[in-house]
Structure formats: structure tokens, C-alpha cells
């Protein structure tokens, strides 16, 4: 990067803190995409969770209670998606489109766009100093990332996800219950979204009910840039981590290079298209070679 200021510790710390919630939310979405589903309702889930923890903090809830509450609320909303997708068998994009609208509008109806203000002192940064708080948020994000890497690569649950994502029928025949895997993935993604909401909310002194608009697109974009295939069953969590960082660096990077910040969205879109296009081009040749090879064998 052409701007040395970008690498000052303070800047990196702020960037890391702002990115941690997106990272956590992207982890949930990654699991869902690995199972060949999609979730576009997490932005709304995020907003609803944020408002809930704001209200709970007003009533004097401690940090751990807030985390538990947010993950619980998120988990319930995830379960609604999970029941409709895995149980009823509706396409996930339609289900989450519907729940997205429903949660967002219910929230608007309920709160009428009002901020949750007058939060106790102990709410921001969990009551710690800003520095400690920032480190706490980043540590939480990294911990979730670490757990996710472990789960996807070294546990049976992770392999179930990949199996269901590659071929649900084959997974069923192999003794996995795709229904339960899909359902639990939706629930955990909801819980992670709740956690992300906590990590985001503690950065501010009040809770904006419009928060999280477009988060679903950010998270999906990060997963895709990180090499997760929307056809399911392919992709790595660490790749998603790289995707989140790459997309998050665009905005601050522009500022430090003295370029107009309005280009952020355009550049992010360009990155997404480039990433998937290179995947298509690079994957194209081996695929064609393999097909030719198989053709020959058949003869």
C-alpha cells in the first residue's frame, strides 16, 4: 500500500474492531452456503438482536447475559428459517427473503425507527477502556474463526456439512440426516449473527435500529471472494477470513490513498466479479481437460 499511515497500530486496531462483527456473521453464512443453502435474512436478524441487547442493557444486563440473549434470539430466528427450509422444504432464498422482510418491518413497526439510548456506562466496550474493548472484540472474532476452522476441518459435524452440501442424497444414504444438519446450521448461523450484533453494538453508545442493512450481501460476498462455492460443499473458512479482510480494507485504503471514498462499493463489486471470474477461468481448463480425459476413457 502506498500510504504508510495505513499500517499504524491504532488504524489497524480500529479496522479490526469494525471488521470483527462482519467476520462472525460471515462465518455463519459460510456454513449455510457450504450446505448449499443461502441466508439473506441475517441483516434483519442482526438489527433485531441489536435492539434486544440494547433494551436488555438498559434493564441492567451484564455482558455475558447480553451475549446469551443475543445468541438465543438469533438462534430462534435461525430456527424459523431452518424449520421452513429443512422441515417444510421451501427454497432457502425465498424463505429468507420473506423472513428478512418480516423481521425488518416488525422491528420498524415496534420501535418506529427510534434509537435505543441512555445505555449504561458499562455497555460500551463491555465497561472496559476503549483499548481493552477493541482487543476484546477482535479476540472474540478470532476465537470464533478458530472454532470454525476446527469444526469444519476436524469434526464430524464439519464433514456432515460438506457432505450435505455436495450431495444431500448421497449424504442421506451414508447415514447422515440432511434435514437435521441443515436445520442446525441455520440455528448456529442465527446464533453467530446474534454474537456479531453484540460485538457491533458495544462499539457505540446507542443502538441504531437500522443497523445491519446490507450485512447479508457483505457476508455472502466475503464468503464468495474467499472461495466458497454457492453450489455447496466446497470452500474453506480461512479463505472467507481473507475475503472479509480484503473487502474491509477497500474503504480505509481509499481514504489513506486520498482517493474519493465513494468508489468503495464499485471497487468491492469489482473484486467480487474478478474473484469469481478468475475462479471460472481457472477452474475451466482443468474441468475441460478432465472431461476430455473421461471422454477418451469411455472410448
Amino acid at each position, binding site marked *: 500500500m502506498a500510504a504508510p499511515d495505513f499500517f499504524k497500530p491504532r488504524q489497524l486496531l480500529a479496522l479490526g474492531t469494525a471488521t470483527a462483527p462482519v467476520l462472525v456473521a460471515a462465518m455463519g453464512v459460510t456454513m449455510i452456503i457450504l450446505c448449499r443453502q443461502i441466508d439473506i435474512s441475517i441483516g434483519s436478524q442482526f438489527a433485531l438482536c441489536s435492539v434486544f441487547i440494547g433494551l436488555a442493557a438498559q434493564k441492567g444486563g451484564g455482558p455475558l447475559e447480553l451475549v446469551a440473549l443475543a445468541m438465543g434470539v438469533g438462534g430462534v430466528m435461525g430456527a424459523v428459517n431452518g424449520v421452513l427450509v429443512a422441515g417444510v422444504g*421451501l427454497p432457502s432464498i425465498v424463505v429468507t427473503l420473506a423472513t428478512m422482510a*418480516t423481521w425488518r418491518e416488525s422491528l420498524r413497526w415496534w420501535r418506529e425507527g427510534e434509537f435505543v439510548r441512555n445505555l449504561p456506562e458499562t455497555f460500551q466496550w463491555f465497561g472496559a477502556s476503549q483499548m481493552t474493548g477493541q482487543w476484546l472484540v477482535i479476540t472474540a472474532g478470532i476465537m470464533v474463526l478458530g472454532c470454525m476452522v476446527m469444526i469444519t476441518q476436524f469434526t464430524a459435524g464439519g464433514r456432515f456439512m460438506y457432505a450435505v452440501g455436495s450431495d444431500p442424497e448421497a449424504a442421506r444414504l451414508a447415514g447422515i440426516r440432511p434435514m437435521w444438519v441443515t436445520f442446525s446450521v441455520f440455528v448456529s448461523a442465527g446464533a453467530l449473527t446474534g454474537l456479531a450484533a453484540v460485538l457491533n453494538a458495544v462499539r457505540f453508545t446507542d443502538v441504531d435500529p437500522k443497523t445491519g442493512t446490507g450485512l447479508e450481501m457483505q457476508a455472502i460476498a466475503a464468503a464468495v471472494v474467499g472461495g466458497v462455492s454457492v453450489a455447496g460443499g466446497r470452500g474453506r473458512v480461512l479463505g472467507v477470513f481473507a475475503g472479509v479482510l480484503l473487502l474491509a480494507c477497500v474503504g480505509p485504503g481509499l481514504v489513506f490513498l486520498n482517493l474519493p471514498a465513494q468508489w468503495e462499493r464499485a471497487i468491492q463489486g469489482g473484486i467480487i466479479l474478478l474473484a469469481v471470474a478468475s475462479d471460472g477461468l481457472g477452474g475451466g481448463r482443468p474441468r475441460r481437460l478432465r472431461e476430455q480425459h473421461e471422454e477418451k476413457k469411455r472410448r
Partner: protein
Amino acid sequence: MNENHNASTTSQGGWRVWFRAESVLLLLLVLEIGVFSKTGTNFWTRENFFEVLRLSVEMGLLAVAMTPVILTGGIDLSVGSLLGLCAICFGKLWRDAGLSPFAAAFATIGLGLMAGALNGALVTRLRLPPLIVTLGSFSLFRGFAEAITKGVDNFTNFPPSFLFLGQGYIFGVIPAQLPCFVAVAVSFWVLVHRTVIGRELRVLGTSPEGAVYAGLPASSRIQLVYVLSGGVAALSALVYVAHLGQAKADAGTGYELLAITAVVLGGTSICGGKGSVHGTLLGLAVLAVMKNGLTLSDLPGELGGILTGVLLLTVLSGELFMRFLSRRIRLRNRARLA
């Protein structure tokens, strides 16, 4: 996302026809109109009828063009952003480049077609999933719109001759944008339901591989639907600008999801292969009447959003249940015959 392709419900006839999405929607629409005529002030008037139509033109254009895209098993998330970009470009060309509104409109439609071609090329040439391609261009187009206006620029003071397209009345009653919408909707209906191309689109949605083995020009057909979707998004942008009298970078935010909602509510399967343009129009009408009726009945507008979500899930689950039921009955009949 890829289960349950259509078991031909259309050819069966009989009572089962009544459980198709279109008839459920028609019933819902009648119900809505009945309820809102009682509760809403000025709901049951000619002016309001045309007002609802006027308000739903932009969305309707997007939804109608989205229908063939979804029929092929694809999706286009970029139309809302493209609407914003086209609105900005139209303003820029007219005000800063000094083109006449007519020339600027022409160039804008060209831009829309090109943007659609970009989506189509990425989907067909590189064989990328449409969801991802259009997610990328969703950011890209909106980003360009923000970059061109630097986030603050706002185009207003368009000439009255142009604003007539969005605000004027033909013969004093018919909103000026309505004929344009009707023309587009009819052409799409003919394309989807009365041409070979339309049938090919369905086949592509039902079984892409089968379509290729049957010798269909798959790439060019898919390219076509995205190009059309882009062009119609540009047209929708013109109507939008003429209607509101201003063009800002955030024009059309979230429209893509509303358009998809109308299409899916209208009985088009999100997995492709099954669906109709008239279904989309019905879905659109249900959503538009609900929004208008709630406003006129002094009910909170948010209720509309909630009901949309619930409606979407109910209609789809209902359809799934009916399919399940009809399969059971068919099996029983077969057992009795044997």
C-alpha cells in the same frame, strides 16, 4: 435450492387447477379489494385505481423482466442498482453533457442493455452462478452510481415534456407511464407464453443439461434474458426519474428483492422451469393493492412488509402441500385401477 421440479399440473385440469398459485392470488386480490373498500377512505375510486397502477409501474417493469430470468433458473439481483446507475447516467447526460432528454434516454437504455449483457456474459461464458454474478454487479452498479455523483449530486429540474412521462395523464385519466408498461408486459407475455424462445427458456430452467443435449442454443437464450432485464431496468429508471422528478444515487434500493417477491408470489418457481408472466402481474397487484389499502386505511405501512413475508411463505407452503396431496390422490387412483 434444487428440488421439486414441476409435475405437470397444467395438463391435468379438473379441480386441481383451482389450487394453482394464480387462482389463490386472484382470490386474495378480491379479498383485499373487498376489505379495503370498507376500511379505506377513497379506496374504491377511479383516481385511486389509476394511482395504484402508477405507483406499481417501476416495480412492475422490473418484475416482468425478472420472470424469464427466474424461469431459466437464474436470478438478477442487480436490477435495483442498475436502476440507480441508469437514473444517474440519464441525469448526467442530460444536464452535464447537454443532450436532449430523448437522446439521453436512448443512451440510458443502451447502457442498461450493456450492463445486462455483462451479467449474461459472465453467466454464460464463465459458467458462474447467476446469484454470485449479479451480487457482484449489484455492488458494482450501485458503486458506480455513488462514484459518479460523489454521493451527494442530485439531478432535478427536468423539462416538463419529460416529466409528463411520469406525472402526466393521457385523456386526463390514464397515467402516462401506463401504456409503456402495458406494452412491455404484453411483449414479455408473448415472448414467454407464445414463442419457441419462451418454451426454450422453460426447458433451460427444468433441465439445463437436457436442453443442451436437445440442441438448444442455451448460451444465447440465457444471454437474452439478462440483456432484456438490463434494458427494462433502464426503462424503469427513466419512468422513476420522470415520476419523482429527481435522480439520486440511491434510486431503486431494495427494488430487486421486491421484484423477486412479486415474481415468486405469482407462482414462478425459484428453481426455474415453471411460472408465468400473468402470475407475476397478479403477484404485483396483490402487493400494490395491499400497500395502497393499508395506507388509506390508516394502518401502519410496516404491516405491509410483514404481510408480504407471511404471504410469500403461506402461498408457497400451500402450493407444496397441494402438490403433495395431488400426488397422494393420483397414487390412490392408480392403486384402485390396478
